[in-house]
């Protein structure tokens, strides 16, 4: 045909709002209040973030517990550059962080300038946004703990 092939920039978009239920809702309420929470399993361990049912026994889980605001990097990767819709606008670590009092690690950002500043086993602590609404992004990320 000799013509330039057609192309178009298209967008697919849905403005979903989901109801949370009491367990996920409690976790999000905690984020709004600047508190990190998990749920206690029948064996006494604490899962963070909380799940509604036990992953092994399928029993409903009902005891929300507060965990620490700091923890240990269990594993990590480096994100550069962040995607367009990422909550973070500059390169950052994404890490599995085992919070104090938790038995499972949760995924969140570690706010450092270079992958050279990330080490498995390092201590990090929560950095909160000023304005919080009950969303995972209320937690801006984790920063290396100040060495006293």
């Amino acid at each position, binding site marked *: 045909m000799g013509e330039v*092939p057609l192309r*178009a*920039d298209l967008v697919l978009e849905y403005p979903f709002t*989901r109801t949370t239920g009491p367990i996920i809702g409690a976790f999000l309420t905690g984020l709004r209040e600047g508190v990190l929470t998990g749920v206690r399993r029948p064996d006494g361990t604490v899962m963070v973030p909380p799940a509604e049912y036990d992953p092994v026994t399928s029993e409903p889980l*009902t005891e*929300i517990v507060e965990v620490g605001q700091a923890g240990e990097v269990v594993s990590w990767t480096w994100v550069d550059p962040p995607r367009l819709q990422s909550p973070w606008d500059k390169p950052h670590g994404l890490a599995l962080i085992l919070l104090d009092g938790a038995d499972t690690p949760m995924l969140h950002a570690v706010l450092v300038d270079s992958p050279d500043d990330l080490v498995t086993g390092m201590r990090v602590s929560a950095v909160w946004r000023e304005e919080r609404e009950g969303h995972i992004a209320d937690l801006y990320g984790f920063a290396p703990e100040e060495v006293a």
Partner: protein
Amino acid sequence: MSEAAEGGVRLPESLRGVEPVQSVRTPIRLEYDYRPSASAESYLRAYGEKRIIGHRSPVDGAVFIPPRGVDPRHGVAISEEVDLPDTGHVGNFCVTHLPIPGRKGLEVPYVSAWIHLDGAAVGFLGLVSGCPSDEVRIGMRVRAVWKPDDELGTTAENIRHWEPTGEPDVPLERAGNQSFHAGRGDEAGA
């Protein structure tokens, strides 16, 4: 209030007595680069000339729109393009009273409809305008309202909407997909 708060869930001290979060926004957005297939490309280019093209099946002559290069009933390739008129009838429709968030230029209520072009075996989606929404009905004859020539592009948006022609309706028993079955000549007789 006891330890057991809503739904039998026990909360830590720090979360008791505060307004619970009950919903969360989880919008999704996908931006993508669309490259049409060969048959879609012909279809879109024809729109730029105010033509509507379909694909005629080599099996029984049924005409499909939009053209996909294949008869999905028989799994055979189609290469024969045919020009379709910009007239047809409403096969089915829906009146929407709630706006689509973020979509501009579409006032409620609006009527989206399956438009069955004369000579096509299947319908395709369009907006019906030019009459009150409560007058839209199955079998209503419609014609395309095209954008002005200087606004035409290689897009199906060249058809602003479909408006009533005022001709007598297609009888209910021959409207929509039933017109396809009726037209095959194997039962109701063409």
